[in-house]
């Protein structure tokens, strides 16, 4: 037997081997075909790395003769501004020559006499920098404390370089060294903190660094306000009575580290803050390292008797580290420093420009200088309505997942046609819930859900909309991944500060940004086949995070990839949209939905002002909360009119109650028949502002209690009266 089987065996092996090869080949072809695109296809320019030089050179010792009465010596000067520095305290004064005003880094010594605070708080008030350090060894481990320019162990050195002056702060006991560079520009002051200038040679590490925390600080009762980037912009008045707060306004630009997101607090969307004092103001824009910067504003009475605002650069993140399952977590601080250059530009304003409108305009020109804002919008005859349509969602019923359809493609087409016949002339359709089985599965979107009609119906719908002249965008989420998706969290999930994959309270994880791009590219390719005009990217406009891999992905890199994906979708399909619209998406989006029009109910913020709307109007169209999901229909409608936002609704054909057991249950009412009348009237109202669509806002003010006026470039004004629930549009002649 054995002898006879011998000649057969090699053949069997050969056949098996061939079969294996065929299978392997198939697998590789299949997986090759399904391999995700990588960000390389975006052809993005590389991210800038820390490159600001540290100007160590001959120390500059100004002569005593140059000093003025207070001891400040002239250091820098250009046509518009002059900078004087105090060699001992390192305080600075920036003189605005045309405005005739001195901006001081700290309150003058003379006015500190009646200051009630003492010790560290008082010396902070006299220092242009406040450094927070953390111990890395022994008992001091994770303990934080502050140092400032009046520290006894400090050695300061002034160095001049071609464009500016560098102040080197070396704390000799703690063995920490930081440099601050001041340069004058045509618009004001540029402050830089290069990473190359930082040394941590001892047992202490840099935790955070506040630069010019008291620049332009003012006493309670003065005329003016602090400007903070709360919602659309918020003012903290110097002369308002205040609740007793234990904290000031401290918020990280673009939101905090992912694991400590606060409920309902909308992240800061733009990196600007400012001060107005009488006829003078400045707006400061954080540029380098803005993603890891807190904006800190303090009311008088908390840390001193001054109102002050400034940028606080974060170098390490504090977190709770679990050492075991049964032990309480301990506070820990990251070991490695975020190696980022930092810079803030202070743009000084005076006269009629010295208010939040002037600040917003200055910020707008900043966006233009960076080439991010793009060109003006083309004028329109009618404003575009954003019509969100919820196709459906998945629910758990009879112990399994089941898709519930709320609007099929055919029904959606009927709805749009009815609106069009009712006088809604321009519509952008944003269709969500079209994915196979609902939008929870991050890896499986196609085929398009059959209960909605499938690919054929989708195609027909898109074609029909095109005949009407309306673009169709599909909404998708490439950021948060439901655990039900067939994708491994270990290799694809972003890691939180403790090094583990971060899960939200609803057990989703965040996709690594490069994979977000991959799935985005893949989906865009497939949607192109049916002629979709773009993608509405959920979470790209309101999210950024640092992926704490061994070699971390910085927040700036996340933003760069997201922006690249948005750009790609625009090029490939036509349009891209986001929610909230953090300013890193500006220039890569065609519109912003759920744009921040409302404040975050911070007790410290006295007034909400349309800073961000002023910066963007005429360049980027933006929409407030959909008309059917407002808390107060009339007031929020008027707010949208006041701030120049556009109309939007999110609807279903069937009753919203059908989606009661699905994740869409937060949309309490969306039935088309219920809302169509309201859409028509609201659209007609919004359309009265159609001539202002491409116009920049040039002024905004309160003219009476509850009455606000917004003025546009072409002279047109919009007056909104919240008391009487009315608004009026006055044309400003021809445009």
């Amino acid at each position, binding site marked *: 037997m054995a002898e006879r089987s011998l000649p057969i065996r090699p053949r069997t092996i050969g056949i098996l081997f061939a079969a294996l090869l065929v299978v392997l080949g198939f697998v590789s072809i299949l997986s090759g075909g399904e391999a995700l695109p990588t960000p390389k296809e975006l052809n993005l320019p590389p991210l800038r790395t820390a490159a600001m030089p540290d100007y160590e050179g001959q120390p500059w010792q100004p002569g005593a003769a140059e000093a003025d009465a207070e001891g400040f010596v002239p250091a820098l000067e250009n046509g518009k501004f002059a900078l004087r520095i105090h060699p001992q305290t390192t305080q600075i004064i920036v003189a605005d020559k045309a405005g005739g005003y001195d901006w001081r880094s700290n309150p003058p010594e003379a006015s500190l006499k009646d200051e009630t605070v003492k010790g560290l708080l008082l010396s902070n008030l006299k220092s242009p920098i406040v450094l927070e350090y953390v111990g890395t060894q022994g008992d001091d481990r994770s303990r934080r404390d502050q140092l400032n320019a009046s520290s006894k162990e400090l050695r300061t050195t002034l160095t001049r370089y071609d464009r500016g002056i560098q102040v080197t702060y070396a704390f000799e006991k703690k063995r920490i060294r930081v440099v601050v560079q001041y340069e004058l520009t045509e618009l004001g002051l540029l402050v830089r903190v290069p990473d190359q200038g930082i040394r941590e040679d001892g047992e202490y590490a840099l935790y955070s660094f506040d630069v010019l925390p008291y620049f332009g600080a003012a006493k309670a009762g003065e005329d003016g306000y602090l400007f903070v980037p709360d919602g659309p912009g918020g003012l903290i008045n110097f002369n308002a009575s205040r609740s007793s707060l234990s904290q000031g306004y401290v918020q990280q630009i673009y939101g905090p580290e992912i694991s400590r997101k606060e409920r309902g607090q909308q992240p800061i969307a733009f990196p600007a803050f400012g001060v107005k004092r009488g006829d003078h103001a400045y707006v400061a824009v954080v540029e380098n390292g803005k993603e890891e910067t807190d904006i800190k504003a303090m009311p008088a009475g908390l840390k001193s008797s001054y109102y002050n605002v400034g940028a606080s650069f974060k170098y390490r993140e504090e977190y709770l580290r679990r050492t075991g399952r049964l032990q309480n977590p301990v506070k820990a601080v990251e070991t490695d420093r975020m190696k980022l250059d930092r810079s803030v530009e202070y743009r000084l304003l005076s006269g009629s420009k010295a208010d939040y409108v002037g600040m917003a305009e200055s910020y707008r020109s900043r966006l233009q200088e960076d080439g991010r804002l793009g060109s003006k919008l083309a004028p329109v005859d009618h404003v575009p309505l954003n019509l969100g349509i919820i196709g459906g969602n998945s629910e758990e019923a009879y112990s399994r997942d089941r898709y519930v359809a709320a609007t099929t493609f055919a029904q959606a087409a009927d709805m749009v046609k009815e609106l069009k016949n009712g006088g809604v002339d321009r519509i952008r359709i944003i269709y969500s819930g079209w994915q196979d089985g609902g939008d929870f599965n991050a890896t499986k979107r196609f085929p398009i859900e059959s209960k909605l009609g499938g690919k054929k119906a989708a195609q027909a719908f898109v074609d029909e909309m095109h005949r009407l002249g309306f673009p169709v965008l599909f909404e998708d989420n490439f950021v948060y991944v439901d655990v039900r998706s067939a994708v491994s969290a270990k290799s694809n999930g972003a890691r939180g500060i403790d090094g583990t994959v971060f899960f939200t309270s609803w057990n989703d994880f965040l996709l690594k940004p490069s994979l977000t791009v991959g799935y985005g590219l893949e989906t865009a390719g497939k949607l192109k086949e049916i002629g979709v005009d773009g993608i509405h990217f959920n979470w790209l406009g309101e999210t950024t995070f640092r992926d704490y891999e061994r070699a971390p992905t910085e927040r700036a890199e996340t933003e760069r990839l997201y922006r690249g994906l948005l750009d790609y979708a625009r090029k490939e399909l036509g349009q891209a949209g986001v929610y909230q619209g953090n300013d890193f998406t500006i220039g890569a989006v065609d519109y912003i939905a759920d744009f921040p029009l409302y404040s975050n109910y911070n007790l410290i913020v006295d007034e909400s002002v349309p800073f961000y709307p002023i910066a963007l109007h005429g360049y980027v169209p933006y929409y407030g*909360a959909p008309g059917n999901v407002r*808390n107060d229909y009339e007031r929020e409608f008027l707010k949208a009119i006041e701030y120049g936002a556009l109309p939007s609704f999110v609807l279903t054909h069937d009753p919203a*109650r059908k989606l009661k057991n699905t994740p869409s249950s937060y949309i309490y009412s969306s039935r088309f028949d219920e809302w169509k009348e309201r859409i028509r009237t609201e659209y007609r109202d919004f359309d009265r502002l159609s001539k202002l669509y491409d116009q920049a806002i040039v002024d905004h003010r309160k003219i009476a209690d509850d009455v606000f006026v917004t003025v546009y470039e072409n002279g047109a004004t919009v007056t909104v009266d919240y008391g009487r629930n009315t608004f009026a549009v006055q044309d400003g002649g021809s445009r």
Partner: protein
Amino acid sequence: MWKRMAVLVLATAFLFVSAPLPASAELPYRTYFNDANSGDWSRIQAVYVPDRTISLSLEEPVDLFIGDDDDAYVVDRAANRIVVIRRDGTLRRTIGDAEGPGALKAPEGVFAAFDGTVYVADTGNERIAVYSREGRWIREYKKPDSSYLPADTYFVPSKIVVDKRGVMYIGISGSELGLLRVDPDGRFTGAFGSNKAEQSYSNWLKHLILNKEQLEKEVANRPRAITNATIGSDGFIYTASAGRGSGNIRKLNPGGFDTFRNKALQNTEGIVDVAVDREGFLYGIDSHNAALTLYDPLGNALFAFGDIDSESVRKGVFGFPTSLAVNSAFEIWVADSKLKNIQTFKRTPFGENVLTAIMLFAKGDYEKSKPYWESVSAQNEMFNMTFQGLGKVDLEEKEYAEAIENFKTAYDVDGYSQAFWEVRYAWLQRHLAALFAVVAAACLGIKYGYKAARRRVRARAWPPRLVRYFLELKDIGYVLIHPYHAFYKLKERTVSWPVIVAILLAAVGYKVLAIYFTGFVFNPVDTSQINLPNKLIFFAVPWLTWIIANYLVCSVRGGEGRFREVVQSSTYALAPYLVFSLPLLLLSNIVVLEERVLVDALHQAMLIWLLCLFFVSMQVIHNFEFVETIRNSLITAFAIGIIWFFAFIVSGLTFNLYDFFIQLYREAIYFG
């Protein structure tokens, strides 16, 4: 620091589906509504939003009262004054901060009578100080001279309420006497509305076990102090007393009788203060659940919102709330001694609609409530109470079919039953004759049809196996009527497995039918959300453990039954379930609430029958005496209990083990 609202825990069922929402202008708090029919809390859009923040250099606002003219009176304890604030938040005047007899010292309570007279609980001066509307000092009331007042009572008034006749109800800090009632002449007329000492089983047990000395060392079980009080426009006095248990908000009539009858209101464990609006709706602020809760006039929780955080930086989140009040426009004002401010909340248009609708609903003005319910439903289709309200309207309009649908949607059994009665009545009126005809025809049909069928079946020759199955199945009926005889018969032979399996499957099948098709009156739930495997496990487990326990116990106790016999007879003992299920199912679909007793009685009968059969089966199978059977049944029941207990313990332990491995896995997978 963050006290999670209990409602959040209840709402977790909703949280797991509430995936990330697009970040838009969200309030610092979420609003939840309480579905009275299901008891669930779920999210809803805001009914109240933060409006104004009034600080006015307040130093320590500890009490707040809003008068009929909507002026707010704030006790600023540290500043020794009363601050009177207009409705728009501006200062009208301060009271009691001038030198003289009217100067206040650390006051804690304030009340403004309908004529504008201001009564202040001047705690530091141990008196009640009275001022005119303009803030002029009029007189004071010191500790009343009365033999009825225990001599050791300290007169440190901290809260005060005054009724229309000028009688004062004075709350004393930490006192268990309740409120001291003092007439306008300063005479003490008795303690009012004291809380009762809580009677608990642990106390009862302590009294039983501990001796006198030990008892003395125990913390005395004393009545709780009243933390706050207010008076409604109808003259009822509402008291708030924090603590575990019931009666935390009481509604006292002039006789001191609690018309809520010691009801346990939700979100009151850490009740700080209670307010009542002119429609009798209650507003409570609770430090334990960190929520402001609205109740209907009967004390049923409706909505909860707000939050407490000592580090609060946002409107709508309290630092240390001390008092709340409601004005004529239903604005809620909350005093906060940590933030040193007053925060006001106003109703949203939705809140206006929904609360007006509920108000009319509570009054029974269903017809008037209709437009409000309609606009509520236009703004929120998820809110179940709308359907209840509209159902009532339908009832009044005699639209019974719509009413049934609405009540079903709201899971309101009571309303459903009313509407169903009407529908059934109309149907019977129309179809009574036809119904009789059908029933008669069916009876005849069955009678003759059965005979004919039997004849035909007998005429044919059947395969022996089928004949056997048929005979075995027929024994089910025999078990029902002659259990002893039937079980003896069964004991003598082996029933084929297919029949046993068929009977068990039939039982499970009936259970499934019962889960999904029992009448709404008996099963008011969303059937799509039922966890079927879970239900079936709980259905099967008792039967299975009975078999195991029965076999184990009886084989030890000298029973002669073998395992197979136990299984066999226990299966046949299910006969009543098979027979009764269908009629029960049918009946449950045609009775109304008042006739529920019919179904319940039948159900009880079935259960008793089942028990009897199990008992008989045990006796017969194991050949026990009657008394022996009783004893062994009890032992079996005990054994079942033990089995379940161990299963519970083991599952608990294995869950810990399982959890340990899961955590280990997560650690290995997501960390490395």
